């Protein structure tokens, strides 16, 4: 099996999706001749032509709006928002339109639009090229939200997103793009939307994360295992909406101690819902208060390296949190 970076897996996946279904469209800013600012769509224009690989005007609401209209007519749009930070102009089309079309027509229409966007920080992107935006969307019934942390999952989840009929937000951690490598089968395959993955078994505590933070959590867990004998279970959510309640509850019941890690702001982030679910379903199994280790409640990540680093959870701060949790 070839080894790919996350971004290569996505490019490979996009290419295959375009091959598999002649009604698949790619649309976004700079997705054509430029191949996307991160190169995710490189080669698509040459291969599939400007009819199916569309350089959109700089107007995110219309990127999603046009995708919705094409989906309504039976096409399979794969829209790209250049940075998750610029998805906000499209929130009306995503939340009020895409997410409600199936419901408001009582199932007559569906709206199978997949919207990809690079998110996350640690690349000196500052306030507007570092945002995590999943916390703004996981409150929206009708959407599915996927955040792959490995190349394998990225390809497989993209396939799954294209196989089903609902709008999917597909967030790709931009710092993971070239950092994370892994094996990816040549042939198309899908990784189901919904189930989380237990990346590391452990008995002392449960660490729940997604995106790049999964790798940081694993690094922390490996070090603590090696050096201190602490065995943390690490769960990769993979799908933020819907959440894999069963896996989360089972692990919390097993370890009795839960740490949730995300880069997104703390208040109202995905960690809040995870904590709420566990407080409802696993309360009497908990031996320590639930902990959230997240980006702080600052509007976004500063540009300067000092405050950027201070914003972000990292393997060391995660290890500290695990230690405190286990010692509670």
């Amino acid at each position, binding site marked *: 099996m070839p080894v790919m970076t996350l971004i290569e897996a996505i490019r490979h996946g996009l290419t295959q999706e375009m091959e598999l279904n002649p009604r698949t469209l790619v649309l976004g800013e700079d997705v054509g001749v430029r191949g996307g600012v991160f190169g995710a769509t490189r080669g698509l224009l040459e291969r599939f032509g400007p*009819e199916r690989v569309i350089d959109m005007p700089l107007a995110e609401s219309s990127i999603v*709006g046009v995708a919705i*209209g094409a989906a309504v007519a039976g096409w399979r749009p794969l829209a790209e928002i250049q940075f998750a930070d610029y998805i906000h102009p499209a929130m009306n089309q995503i939340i009020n339109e895409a997410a409600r*079309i*199936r419901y408001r027509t009582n199932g007559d229409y569906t709206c199978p639009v997949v919207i990809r966007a690079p998110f996350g920080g640690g690349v000196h992107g500052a306030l507007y090229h570092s945002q995590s935006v999943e916390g703004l969307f996981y409150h929206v019934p009708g959407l599915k939200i996927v955040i792959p942390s490995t190349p394998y999952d990225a390809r497989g989840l993209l396939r799954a997103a294209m196989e089903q009929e609902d709008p999917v937000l597909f967030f790709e951690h931009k710092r993971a793009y070239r950092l994370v490598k892994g094996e990816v089968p040549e042939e198309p395959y899908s990784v189901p939307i919904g189930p989380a993955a237990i990346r590391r078994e452990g008995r002392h505590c449960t660490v729940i994360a997604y995106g790049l933070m999964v790798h940081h959590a694993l690094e922390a867990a490996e070090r603590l295992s090696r050096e201190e004998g602490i065995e943390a279970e690490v769960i990769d959510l993979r799908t933020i909406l819907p959440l894999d309640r069963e896996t989360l509850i089972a692990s919390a019941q097993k370890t009795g101690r839960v740490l949730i890690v995300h880069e997104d702001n703390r208040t109202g982030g995905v960690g809040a819902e995870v904590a709420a679910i566990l407080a409802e379903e696993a309360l009497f199994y908990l031996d320590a208060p639930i902990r959230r280790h997240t980006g702080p409640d600052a509007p976004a990540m500063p540009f300067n390296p000092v405050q950027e680093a201070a914003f972000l959870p990292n393997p060391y701060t995660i290890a500290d949190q695990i230690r405190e949790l286990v010692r509670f």
Partner: protein
Amino acid sequence: MATGDRVDLLERYQHGRHRELGLTDEDVRRMYEVMLLARRLDERMWILNRTGQAPFAISGQGHEAAQVGAAWALDRERDWIYPYYRDVALVLVWGLTPRDLMLQLLGKAADPSSGGRQMPNHFSSRRLRIAPQSSVVGTQIPQAAGTALASKLEGTGAVTLVTFGEGATAQGDFHEGVNFAAIHRLPVIFFCENNGYAISVPAEKELSVPDVADRALGYGIPGVTVDGNDPFEVYRVVREAVERARAGEGPSLIEAKTYRLLAHSSDDDDSTYRPREEVEAWRQRDPLPRLAAYLKEHGLADDADLQALEEQVRQQVDDATEHAQAAPYPRAEHLLDHVTGP
């Protein structure tokens, strides 16, 4: 807005104008029939609202000629429409029935557009190529461009008609949708039913140009203003736009100047913001009596025919009302159906 008078004048000189446009006598009779049906249905909806039987009504009264004129220029068998809440007459042409509309008015389970989930006049049907409508003003415009893009790629020659009020043209989505369609020369017709107000806000506070059609200038596409109370004129300009669209020449913006004869909706009171003389003046240009007069003048119908038609329409409206009243509400246990698929 003197277009109405100008056309009345023209009418005196152009006998049989519909024939010149290629419309048959039967077409014109059918147009009138749909307009009348839309009007009577709409009136009934208000009665049901005023008598406490329907929580909400929103009116297309006054807009019927614009809608029917546009609808006739399209091909119901292949074209798409993205209607808005005033388009009772348009969707009747497109195949929704009075029963369908009444079922939605009363929020009944058999409402084919939404299963009783949406407010009245939120039209939708995959089978009929009526796009899934929301209440959010303007969102349908880029979506219509997306559907037109699909049609272009399919090469079917299908055209998309998207309708909206003049107020909607202030939304960013209007601009983004028209801009994209113009760049890619998509087969879409932007059809504005300009009734001079967005609820209470008059056109001068929504636009800085005299006509909505002027907005087309910024996109390099044709912009046409037409008397929206004259179904033939509307038919003529929309047909031209359809021909352009099918020939791959891109979108058009058409502005049908009209008026809503009633308040914005059953929750509105327009007496604070529309002078009664203005409303009265527009009542004089009501497209229904105008087309009735044309029918008689051109020997397409006499008073007895019109009377019979009224009777037939009344029966349809009665039937729709009774059918909807007798129909069951959706069940609570279906509240969470169709949120997402698996």
